C-alpha cells in the first residue's frame, strides 16, 4: 500500500467518523446528565433531510446546517418533554423518537429523493494544507474541524467548568443535586436539546457532505453506533473521538476491501463488520477488569421527580 493510499484511507476515515462523532458527543453530554436518549437515529435522519431540503431550496449551506441543528433539537425537545415533564419510560420514548423521526424524514424527503446538491466547501488550513502528501488531511469542510473542536470543547466543559461539574452531578446523583438546590430537570432538558442539535448536525454532515444527496434511511444505523460509541468511550469525550475514528475506520476498510477485490469475500459479510465490531466492543467493556473503569453515570435512564 502506497503512502498516497494510506493518506486517502485516513481521509475517508475522517469523513466517515465525523457524523458518528458529532452524534456521539451530543449523546455523551445527554447521558452524563443522566438521560438515555435512544432516538439518535431518528434525530439524525430528520437533521439530514431538513438540512438537505434547505440546501436544495436555498443553496445556502450555513442556513442548511442551522436548520438541521434546529430540527434535531426540536425532536429532542419532544423527547425531553415526555421523559422529564411526563416521566415516560426513556427506552420506550427513545424508540418512539426513532420511529417517528424515521417516518418524518421520509415524509419530508419525498420530493427531494435523487436531487443533487453541491457538497460543503473545503476550507484548507493555511500552511498545514500545503504540506505535500498529508496536506490533504487539512483540506476538509468546516464540520470535520468542528467535530474535533467540539471534542476538545466538551472535554474542557465537563472537566474544568462549573457548568460541567453541575451537569455531571445531576447525572451522578439527581436527588443530591436537587437537595442542594440545582434545577435537575432544567439542566437535563438543556442537555437533551444539545444532544438533539448535535445529532441533527451529524445527520446534516451525511446529506450535505459525506454523500450530498437524500436517500430514505440514509443513516443506516449510524445513530445506534453513536450510542454504542458513548458506551465504548466510557462517557469520556476524547475516547469518543477514538471510538468514532475506529468505527469510521472499520467502515472505510470494508469499502476498501470491497472495492479492491483483494479478498474473495461477499460484500455483505464485510458490511456486517461495524455492527459485529460494536457487539464485540460492548462485550469487552461490560464485564471483567474493564468494568470498574467504565461505570456509567449512576442515574442513567432513571426518571426523576422532585420529592415532596
Amino acid at each position, binding site marked *: 500500500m502506497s503512502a498516497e493510499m494510506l493518506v486517502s484511507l485516513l481521509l475517508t476515515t475522517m469523513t466517515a467518523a465525523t457524523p458518528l462523532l458529532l452524534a456521539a458527543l451530543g449523546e455523551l453530554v445527554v447521558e452524563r446528565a443522566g438521560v438515555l436518549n435512544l432516538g439518535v437515529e431518528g434525530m439524525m435522519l430528520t437533521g439530514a433531510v431538513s438540512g438537505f431540503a434547505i440546501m436544495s431550496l436555498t443553496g445556502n449551506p450555513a442556513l442548511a446546517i442551522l436548520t438541521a441543528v434546529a430540527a434535531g433539537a426540536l425532536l429532542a425537545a419532544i423527547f425531553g418533554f415526555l421523559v422529564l415533564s411526563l416521566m415516560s419510560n426513556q427506552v420506550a420514548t427513545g424508540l418512539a423518537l426513532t420511529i417517528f423521526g424515521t417516518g418524518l424524514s421520509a415524509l419530508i424527503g419525498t420530493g427531494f429523493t435523487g436531487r443533487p446538491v453541491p457538497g460543503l466547501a473545503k476550507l484548507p488550513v493555511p500552511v498545514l494544507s500545503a504540506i505535500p502528501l498529508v496536506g490533504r488531511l487539512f483540506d476538509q469542510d468546516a464540520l470535520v474541524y468542528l467535530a474535533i473542536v467540539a471534542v476538545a470543547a466538551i472535554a474542557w466543559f465537563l472537566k474544568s467548568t462549573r457548568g460541567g461539574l453541575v451537569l455531571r452531578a445531576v447525572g451522578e446523583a439527581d436527588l443530591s443535586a436537587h437537595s442542594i438546590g440545582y434545577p435537575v430537570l432544567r439542566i437535563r432538558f438543556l442537555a437533551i436539546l444539545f444532544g438533539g442539535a448535535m445529532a441533527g448536525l451529524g445527520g446534516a454532515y451525511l446529506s450535505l457532505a459525506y454523500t450530498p444527496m437524500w436517500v430514505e434511511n440514509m443513516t443506516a444505523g449510524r445513530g445506534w453506533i453513536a450510542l454504542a460509541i458513548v458506551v465504548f468511550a466510557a462517557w469520556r469525550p476524547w475516547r469518543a473521538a477514538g471510538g468514532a475514528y475506529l468505527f469510521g475506520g472499520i467502515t472505510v476498510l470494508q469499502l476498501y476491501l470491497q472495492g479492491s477485490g483483494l479478498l474473495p469475500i461477499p460484500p455483505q459479510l464485510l458490511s456486517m463488520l461495524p455492527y459485529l465490531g460494536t457487539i464485540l466492543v*460492548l462485550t469487552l467493556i461490560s464485564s471483567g477488569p474493564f468494568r470498574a473503569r467504565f461505570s456509567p453515570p449512576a442515574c442513567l435512564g432513571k426518571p426523576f421527580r422532585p420529592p415532596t
Partner: protein
Amino acid sequence: MRILVEPRRQPSRRLWTLTPILALVLTMAIATALFAALGYDAADSFMAFFVSPLTDLTGLTELAVKGAPLLMIAAGLAMAFRAGVSNIGAEGQLIMGAVAGGGVALAFWEQSGPWILPLMALAGIGGGMAWAAIPAFLRVRFAVSEILTSLMLTYVADLFLNLLVYGPWRDPDGMNFPQSRLFNDDETLGILVDGTRLHTGTLVALVLALAVWVVMTRSLLGFRIRTVGASAAAARYAGFGNDRVIWFTLLASGGLAGLAGLFEVAGPIGQIIPQITPGYGFTAIIVAFLGRLHPLGIVPAALVVALSYIGGENAQVLVGLPKAVTGVVQGLLLFILLASDFLVRYRLRLARRAGAAA
C-alpha cells in the same frame, strides 16, 4: 388558578385501559390535520387512511394478514418487556426465522408431505431463538445491555438475508432476479377464505396470544416474569432465577418473531426475497405498548397498527398521500400513548394559587 400535579396512591385501572383508546383518537385527529397541512383533502384522506380499509372483505382480511405477525411478535415482546428485557431486535429475529424455516423449504423443494410445514415452523422458531440467544448470552454472562446488541444483530440479519438471496439461494430459473424459488404447495400455509390472502397462520397467531395470556396471568412462570421486571432485587430475594427469566423471555420472544417471519415467507410471500418485512419487528413494539403489554390487549392493538400499514397503502392509491405517512402515524401513536400514561399515574387538579407557593 394553576394546575396541580399529584401522584395517585395507586395507578388508575380505568385510565390504564382507556388511555390507549384516547391515544388512538388523538393520533387520528393529529394525523388528519397533518394530511390537511400537506395539502390533501382532510375528509378524503381520513376516509382513505382510517375507514375504507375496514369496509370490504379484502381490507378486513388484509388487516388480519398484517396483524398476525404483529400479534405474534408483540406477544413475545410483551413477555420480554414485562421482565424488563428490552428486546428491540425482533426484526432481526423475524428475518432469521424466515431464513431458517425458508431454508428448510428450499432444501426440500422437490419433496412433498404434511411433515414439511411443521418442520419449517420448527426451524423458523429455532432461527429466531438462536438469534435472540446471542443477546441473552451476552446479557447473562457478560452483563451487556441487550438494547444495542439485539438491534445491531438486526442489521447483521438483514445483510445475511441479502447475501443468501443475491447468492446461493437465488432462483436458478429466475432470470437473475434476487429471489429464491417459489415454495411448493406443501410448503405454504393454507388459505382460509378463497380469493383473499387470509392464511392459517393468523389462527396460530391468535392461539399463541391466548397461550401467552394464560402464562402471564395464571402461572407461576408469568408471576416470576412480572416480578423480575418490576424489581430485580425482589425477584432475587424470592429466588426466582433472574437469569433464567431473561433467557426464557428472550428465547420466547425470538422464537415467536422467528415463527412470524416464517409465516410471512410461507404465507403471503411464498418465497424468499430481500424485503420480507415492512418493519414488523419494530412496529410490534408499538403494538406491545399500545396493548399495555397484556396478551389480550395486543390483539386489538395489532389490528390498529396493521390498519396504519393498509391505510397508508390505501391513501397512497386513493388520494396520493406519500407512503411515508405510515411511519409518522405510527411514531405519533406511540408518542401520544407514552404521554397519556402520565394521567394513569398522576392526577391533575385545578387549585387556587397558594400564597407562599413558588
